[in-house]
């Protein structure tokens, strides 16, 4: 029995019966209801627009401040710069240090690209194993996989640091992406498992009868089908890695290896209260990759966010 049926039954008994309600009254009401419907819609639009403006204003303000000369930022709340200038971008990009944002962006991508690739590949392999094979101890492994989703990662931080120090990996990108090869983000594996569970294995069985081994089935039959889920995984990992701050903070010590996140933190420490337009210009640029990716692949984001929550 579906949730709907049960609830409508409950509802039927819970609500008072409406005896003797006469039809003409309903007809009379119809006009007023339609009017109230229009007011309702207008009210909804008003709330949504107001909230939307408040939400997006800080972002717009940041972009406009990046084009303003420094003194203008403090004196006008307005968005349109009176004397637009690219000074903020030019000086901000050069920074006060010996490295420019070219270095910091190169570092960011040198960390993110292996992270995204390793996460996608390992998530698909592990999800394929969970979704399609009989495995000894499967229930336990799956329970542990879900537990890693809820485990606060901060409890692992210090021993991981000590371990990577033992490996001699401090001040390198290795501690940041090597764990991704081992499907350490349970959430991503879960996303792909859920997706695979929704796909009937008919095609794979046909391929097996035709003599494919499981690796070939994965490569030629499963991989093309799970692509939407893999794209969601890759997108989320990209965003999260762009935003990652704590891990680079503890693992990287030389400025030449800093990703954008650390460079921005350094910029506010150095240029404190002096060159707002430079810092805001660099913050704007730092958000561009995430925004681009988001707009190119919006649909996958919404699907990904809701995948685990609603159908699970």
């Amino acid at each position, binding site marked *: *029995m579906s949730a*709907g049926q*049960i609830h409508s039954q409950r*509802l039927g008994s*819970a*609500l008072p*019966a*409406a005896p003797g*309600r006469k039809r003409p009254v309903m007809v009379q009401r119809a006009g007023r209801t339609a009017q109230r419907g229009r007011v309702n*819609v207008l009210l*909804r639009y008003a709330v*949504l627009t107001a*909230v939307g403006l408040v*939400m997006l204003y*800080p*972002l717009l303000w940041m972009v406009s*401040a990046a084009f303003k000369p420094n003194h203008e930022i*403090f004196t006008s709340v307005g968005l349109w710069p009176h004397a637009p200038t690219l000074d903020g971008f030019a000086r901000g990009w050069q920074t006060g240090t010996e490295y420019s944002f070219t270095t910091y962006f190169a570092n960011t991508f040198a960390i993110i690209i292996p992270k995204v690739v390793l996460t996608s590949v390992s998530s698909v*392999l*592990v999800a394929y194993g969970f979704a*399609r*094979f*009989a*495995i*000894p101890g*499967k229930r336990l*492994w799956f329970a542990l996989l879900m537990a890693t989703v*809820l485990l606060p*990662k*901060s*409890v692992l*931080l*210090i*021993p*991981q640091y*000590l*371990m990577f120090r*033992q490996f001699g990996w401090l001040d390198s990108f290795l501690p940041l992406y090597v764990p991704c090869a*081992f499907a*350490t983000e349970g959430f991503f594996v879960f996303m792909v498992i859920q997706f695979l569970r929704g796909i009937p294995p008919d095609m794979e*069985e046909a391929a097996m009868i035709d003599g494919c081994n*499981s690796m070939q089935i994965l490569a030629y039959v499963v991989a093309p089908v799970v692509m939407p889920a893999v794209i969601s995984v890759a997108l989320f990992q990209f965003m999260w890695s762009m*935003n990652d*701050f704590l891990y680079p903070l*503890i693992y990287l010590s030389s400025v030449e290896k800093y990703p954008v996140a*650390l460079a*921005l*933190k350094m910029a506010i420490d150095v240029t404190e*209260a002096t060159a707002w337009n430079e810092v*805001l210009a*660099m*913050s704007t640029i*730092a*958000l561009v990759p*995430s925004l681009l990716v988001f707009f190119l692949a919006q649909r996958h*984001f*919404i699907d990904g*966010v809701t995948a685990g*929550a*609603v159908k699970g």
Partner: protein
Amino acid sequence: MYENRITGLLYIAPFLLGLVMFTLFPFVSSLLLSFTDYQLQDPVSAAHAIGLENYRQMVGDRTFRHALGVTLLYVFATVPLKLAFALFIAFVLNFKLRAIGLFRTAYYIPSILGGSVAIAVLWRYVFAGDGLINQALGAAGISAVNWLGDPAYALTTIVLLRLWQFGSAMVVFLAGLQTIPTDLYEAATVDGAGKARIFFTITLPLLTPVIFFNFVMQIVQAFQEFNGPYIITGGGPLKSTYLLPLMIYDEAFKYFNVGYASALSWTLFLIVALFTALAFGSQRYWVFYGGERGERT
């Protein structure tokens, strides 16, 4: 589907290896480290077992008690407000509106960007003495507030940052709302139920699994908040935004007291575990999965 048990094990081998190396081993190590006086600069062999000394020190540590209080205040301000707001907006949005996609996108953008350093930096300027908020207040004739410098307001700025990111919770609520069959609403309307009644007897009960999911995720996340206070306020002023993760970071990587920091991080873990367990345990009283409370069909 396939019977060969070894092949399956090979496919999940990366996960099993990673589980042992990067999760279980560090998880147990940090518990063991919490019973030692280990200092970051020493070789690991130099650590001495000191029993529960770190935990005893923690009980008497005023900084810890303060950080714990700030953390609980932060979590209990952020999570309910964020969920309530996300639910409200999802409810307003769940209507045959034109441009629903546009609004959904606009609201979702902050939650993908909000965790970044760039946004934390922006927040610092938005709430600065002569920043956007105070300029706007000034324009409305309200005197400026020292958001980041006054211990009474600093935590609010961080709560507001995380509230600003209500979009991901909202998207989940919206998807949940859209799975509620419309014939339920029609049936209730025919039976004469008012809007409020429909909300409390149909929408809310059917939404409890999604509320539960969002609640657990937000609690786990909120207890680990680091970027916001570290970048926006640095834990100050007067430690008014000094959340436990900041204290753990300072103890481990600034003062090198790894043993003590490990005790702190295990305490934080136990607190999160307690709240998660409470949430799961209370499920059968308030979460409807299909048929019965707390039971999945």
